[in-house]
Structure formats: C-alpha cells, structure tokens
C-alpha cells in the first residue's frame, strides 16, 4: 500500500462548547475509494468542511503529501488539490454551465475569458461524465437538480483533484448517472486520486468503496477494508452501544383520539402523500434520514408552505392553517419549535424577554398597551418553569448557551398553552443535561394532554421518547413503529428503506 496522501492528526472541533469532532486521526491513500459512514451528527460533515477549508479545526494538524498545511478558505484547499463537492451546491444559478465549470480559473485569451475555449472545455469534461445532453450554454438555474449535480461533479473533475470528496453527491442522480459516476470514480482511482465518498445509501457504499471508516459522536471509531465486517456489524459500529441520555418512562400504550390527523399530504416534490396522526397525550416521532421531507411536513402543518394539498384535521376541524398566526390562534393552538434556532427560532439581536414574549404579546397587553407587570410575571414564570439559567431578562439572548437558547424557544411557545406541539430536532447541538430536561418536559406536556409531533435526527431519542414513530423516506411514511418495535435496527433499516431481515 502506498503512503497516505492526506493525513489528519488529533483534529478537534467544537461549536459553542459542543463537541463536533474530538481527537480524530484519519488518513486516506491515493488510488482508493474511501467510504465514510456514520449516523446524522456523527461528525462526517464537520470533517469534510475542515478538509475543504470551510472550517478551521480547533486543534490538530493536517498533512498533505507529508507536508503540514492549513487552509483558511475553500480556494486554498482547491488549489492544493483537495476538491469537495458539497451537498449544498456551489454553483451560481445565473451563470451558464460552461461559466460554472471554469468559474475561478477560466481559459483566457488576451487576459479575457475565452468563451469558445471555455465551452469546448466544458464539452470535453461533460463528455467524460457522459453528459453530452447538457448544453454548456444553458443557465444552471434552468437545469434540473440531477443535472446540476452532474455539473457540480464535472466542475470538481475540471479542477484536477488529488483528493476528491463527494458529500452525498449522488443523492439526486438517476440510476444511469450513478453508474456513470461509479465508472468515473473507478477511472480516477486508477489515476491515483484519493476519493472520499459519503453517502447514506448503504448499497452504494458497498458497491463502490474499498475502504470504510465509521464515525460516531464526533469520533473516528474504526477504519477497515471492505468485507472485514458484515453489514450487521457495520450498522452496530455506527449505532454504538453507549446510551447517552436517560429517558423518562413511557406510559402503557392506550387508545387515543387523534387530535391531529394528516392524510395524503403533498407539497411540491418534497412531500408525496404523508399519512399520520397524533393523539392527545401522545408523542409521535418522525424518523428517517435528514432531508426526506420531515422539515417540510412540520412547516406545512404550521401554515408556512403554499400549495399544500391533502387533508389535515386539527381537533376534528378540517383545514390546513394559512399562516403561523392562524396556526397559533386557532381553537386548537399549535406551536412549532423550528429547525434552526439561530435564524428561525430566535431574534438573536433582541433581549431574552422579547424573545420569550414574541408569540404572546396579545396575552400580556391591556388593549394595545403591554402591561409591564404581566410581562415581567410571564417571563419569570417561564424562566422558572423551564429552569432557564439567565442573568437578567434584558440581556441579549446571545449571552445564553445553546441549551438555554433552545429552552427560550420552547418556553415562548408554552406561554400560549398550545394543544399541538411540533418539534423539529429540538436537541440538535445542545448538551446532554438540557437534552434530558427537554425529554422530561415533553413527557410532562404529553401527560397534560398535549399532542406532540417530534422530529429528531438522533435515533436514540426517537426510541427513548416516542410512543410511536413514523419513518419518512423520500416524502412519504414508509413504516410506522410502535412500542417495543421501535428499535435501532428497525429505525435504521426503515430509514434506508431496506428490509429489516436483510440487515
């Protein structure tokens, strides 16, 4: 075996004190296709971002061909030969395919971009990935997602990579394109390129990679040659054995009247007919891999999306809320704890008190005027109820830790006493202690008779918290697990949409 082309020693990265990567040693060799496996949040994408210069590690060193390097911009990484294809496409929609393929270093003539040469270069590269059907002069904006992904691959190819990173690069591709990409990657391997391949599709990783690395909880667990472990063993490595959090006991299953029921919910091409129901006193989980439509489902129920079709019954009344205001103010009030706390849940520039009161100005006012005593009482009640650690309510909300910020978002909604609570990954990026408080709170709220719909990217949470779990794959519910049937194996298998027996 040849020497590693890139090597990472003791890489650590923390976000607001939360571990994303800890003391990771990792290397890859030229002429290998190296698959990276791990659950959501295992640290895969942080590793890739560090490799490609988007993030800088807090500790550790990087070696490229034996020499230490550090990158402060993606450009530097690219110029050194580490080229990454991101999940979020790095294409510029208003420029043409040819422009995008040669974006930062186009062929020039008299110092100006030589368009003809650029088109020719694009055609040659596109031909290598058998995408002759893509017009180099078309605007990227007008291409379908799968074509864009192929352009993104072409762009990466044109940069003559020594290390090529594909992060979910094939998620939108057609079967034919996937095979083209496989052939291409095999070609590159022959030429001595090191390829890192991240995919949630197990069978892809199986078919393609010769080396596999498993990550879990920000740590590098094991690297092994394909075939050294069975599928079952690999899945076990990914899930791990450690139980991080204690969950409150679940009540005995009992029949419940559905408070929220959804039938055939469709939106654009993201939701393809979702059926589920949540009853009073019930916590229903939404499982599945990231980006299968869970977020869209919650937004649709909360009146954020336009053009939603299908039937929704809330407290026996049919109809999808028209806006968050509508959802919040109905006879059966709803609340949504959104995915991104920093951009959707909080007004970061504002004080704690205003963030807490943002959904309930009406309740603390007499006429149009806020009653400062009612406001102060509401704030102190909320802080006490959720045990939020704050200095003063007039401090900026940015002074709080991630966990306490998330509690603010939850407390904001509890002030309006909602009957249905939609939670979008509420424990992402917060500490274990706060996580446990949130689990207990969820159970308490359920016991008070509220209906909770809970999306989490962490399977352990779904298992520990939920009475039932609906697993979403590609915009519809593929499996519903209840009671003891909610197991790690079951969830992982359903998430990948494969039969449990096959694992």
């Amino acid at each position: 075996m040849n020497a590693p082309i890139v090597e990472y020693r003791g890489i650590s990265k923390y976000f607001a004190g939360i571990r994303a990567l800890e003391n990771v040693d990792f290397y890859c060799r030229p002429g290998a296709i190296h698959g990276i496996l791990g659950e959501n949040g295992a640290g895969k994408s942080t590793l890739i971002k560090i490799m490609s210069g988007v993030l800088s590690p807090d500790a550790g060193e990087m070696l490229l061909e034996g020499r230490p390097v550090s990158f402060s911009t993606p450009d530097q990484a690219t110029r050194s030969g580490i080229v990454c294809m991101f999940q979020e496409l790095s294409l510029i929609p208003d420029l043409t395919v040819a422009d995008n393929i040669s974006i930062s270093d186009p062929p020039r003539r008299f110092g100006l971009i030589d368009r003809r040469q650029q088109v020719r270069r694009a055609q040659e590269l596109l031909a290598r990935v058998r995408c002759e059907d893509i017009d180099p002069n078309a605007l990227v904006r007008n291409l379908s997602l799968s074509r864009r992904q192929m352009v993104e691959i072409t762009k990466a190819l044109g940069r003559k990579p020594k290390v090529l990173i594909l992060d979910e690069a094939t998620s939108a591709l057609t079967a034919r394109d996937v095979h083209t990409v496989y052939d291409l990657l095999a070609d590159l391997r022959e030429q001595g390129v090191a390829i890192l391949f991240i995919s949630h599709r197990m069978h892809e990783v199986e078919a393609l990679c010769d080396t596999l690395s498993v990550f879990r909880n920000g740590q590098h667990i094991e690297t092994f040659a394909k075939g050294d472990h069975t599928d079952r063993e690999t899945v076990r490595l990914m899930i791990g054995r450690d139980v991080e959090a204690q969950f409150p006991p679940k009540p005995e299953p009992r029949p419940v009247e559905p408070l929220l029921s959804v039938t055939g919910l469709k939106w654009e091409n993201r939701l393809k007919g979702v059926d589920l129901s949540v009853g009073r006193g019930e916590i229903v989980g939404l499982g599945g891999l990231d980006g299968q439509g869970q977020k869209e489902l919650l937004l649709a129920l909360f009146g954020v999306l336009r053009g939603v079709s299908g039937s929704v019954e809330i407290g026996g009344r049919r109809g999808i809320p028209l806006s968050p205001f509508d959802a919040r103010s109905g006879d059966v009030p709803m609340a949504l704890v959104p995915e991104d706390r920093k951009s959707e849940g909080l007004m970061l520039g504002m004080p704690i008190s205003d963030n807490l009161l943002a959904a309930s100005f009406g309740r603390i006012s007499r006429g149009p005027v806020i009653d400062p005593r009612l406001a102060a009482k509401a704030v102190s009640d909320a802080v006490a109820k959720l045990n939020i650690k704050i200095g003063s309510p007039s401090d900026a909300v940015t002074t709080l830790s991630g966990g306490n910020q998330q509690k603010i978002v939850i407390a904001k909604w509890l002030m309006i006493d909602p009957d249905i609570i939609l939670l979008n990954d509420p424990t992402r990026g917060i500490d274990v202690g706060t996580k446990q408080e949130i689990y207990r709170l969820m159970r308490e709220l359920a016991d008070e008779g509220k209906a909770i719909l809970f999306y989490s990217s962490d399977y352990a949470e779904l298992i520990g918290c939920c009475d039932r779990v609906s697993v979403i794959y590609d915009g519809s519910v593929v499996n519903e697990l209840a009671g003891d049937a909610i197991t790690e194996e079951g969830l992982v298998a359903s998430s990948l949409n494969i039969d449990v027996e096959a694992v």
Partner: protein
Amino acid sequence: MLNRISAENKPIVISAMFIVVILMAGTAYTVSTAGTAPLLSPNYLLQQLQTGAFLGICAAGMMMVILLGNIDLSIPWTLAAAAMMATAVGGSLAVPTALAVGLAVGLVNGIGVAYLRIPSMIFTLGVDTVLRGLMVAHTGGFAPQDAATPLMLFLAKEDILGIPAAIFVWAAVSLVIFGILTRTGFGRALYATGSREGAAFLSGIRTRLVIVGAFVMSGLCASLAGVLLTGYSAKAYQGMGNAFLLPAIAAVVLGGTHILGGRGRYVGTLIGVILIVLLNSVLSIMQMPEAGRQIIYGAVIIGMLLVYGRNARVTS
C-alpha cells in the same frame, strides 16, 4: 469609559458628546469673532428646536421604517402633497386632509413592500415620483395660491408658555412613538420583524401588517411635518419636503438605529436630529458655504458610522 456603555447606547453617547463639541466649537467661534455666545442662549436654542421640529417629526416616522430594515424615500413629496392638499381644502378640514394623505401614501408603500415584496428603496422612490407628478399636475406648475389655515399658523409659529408650539407637537409625536416602541405589542413586533422577519413570522407575528403599520406611521409623520412647515412658511410650495429626506435618514442612522433593522432607540433619533440641527446652525453662523456643508455632512455620517461599524465587526 466607552467600553462600559452597552452597544445600543454607544452611538447615543457619542452623538451627544459630538453635540457638546459642536456647541463648544460654535461658541468659541462667535466669542472670538463677535465676542458673544448666542449658541448658549435658551431663546436661540428654542428657536433652533422649533425649526428642528419638522426634521424631528420626519425622522421619527423614518425610524419606524428603518427599524424594519426598510427605507421610505417618499417622504419629500408625501410631506408636500399633504401640505398642498391641506391648503387646497382649507378650513377645519385642512389638517385631517393632510393626515389622510399621509395615511393613504403609507398604505400604498406598505402594501407594495409587504405584500408585493418590492424593495422599499425602489417602491417608495416610485411613489415619490408619482406624488410629485400628481402635485405638479394639480398646481399646474405654479406655486399654490392657498394659504395656511389659522390652526397651522398657530401650531408652527405661536408660543405656548414662552415655548414654540411646534416643539410641543414634536414632543407629543415623540411621546407617542416612544410609547409605541417600548410599551405596545406592535412596537415589540416591529423590532422582532426588523431583527429577523423569518423568526418573527414563525412566532405567529403578522409581519406584513407590521410592515404596513410602520409605513403608515412614516406617512402620517411626514404629513404632520408638512402641516407644520406650511404654517411656518404660511403656504405650501413645490419641493418643500426635499430638504428633509437625507437629513432624516442621517439623523436616524447617526442615532444608532441599524440600517438593516432590528436595533435602535428613539432617544438616539432625537439626539441625531438635534445633532444635525445644531451642526447646520453652527455652520450657518460660521457662514460656511453650501459646498463645505455638504462635505462636512457626508464626512460626519461616514466618520460616525465607521466608529459604530467597528463595533459591529466584533460582535458578528
């Protein structure tokens, strides 16, 4: 010392200190040339505040819009249109007419920005041009012959207890705006929407109504300033509002309101207005030509923003 002041109050403190500097520089000038210190006499200052009231009221309205991260460029002709319509109607209906014009313009602006989602910069510019066209067509291009009504004259020129009535009007507007911003749900929703509209929307705040409300307030303030200015000049005239747009924006921004919205205190806007009014009057005492005034204006805005700008870099 400045380090201990909160980021929100820093622009206010710096602006207030700058006001003191302006007063001292102006007084030093008058003492050295004429041997008097008119700048420090209460009467002179009250007189400056009286003329400052027009700008102050415009700036109060402008602040509502800037808190949302928007801008209202239609203030000049909203002001002029309100004044012209008021004098054209005359009598006891004059002032209500002016306010109705301001309300209508604010509604149009708000709908364009909140519902059609057209950038406020462009939409209000278009509305301003249309208003100008309407007014020019209305007057036939001549100076309107209608005179200000007695109420307008009283509000702009008379004194109450030795203090100009215009200052009372400005104070009343300030109290209302201050109350709205600090004590009402609408005020808090305004900050929330300006801070992050997406988060405010997901909290169930009807952000589009908030935006319309802010533009309506801006239109009302401009029309009220038009009423006062008409009283002050005894008539309405073409282009009477032109001198207020840029100083109003400058006053709001100098007072520490963030141009992208969400942050700013009304006290800051008050200080910003006083700063600009005094800067103007000191420059005119010094007989500074228009050229120098413009340059100093621009330089003061850029300079002060660079000071606050450094602040933003650290926190972001």
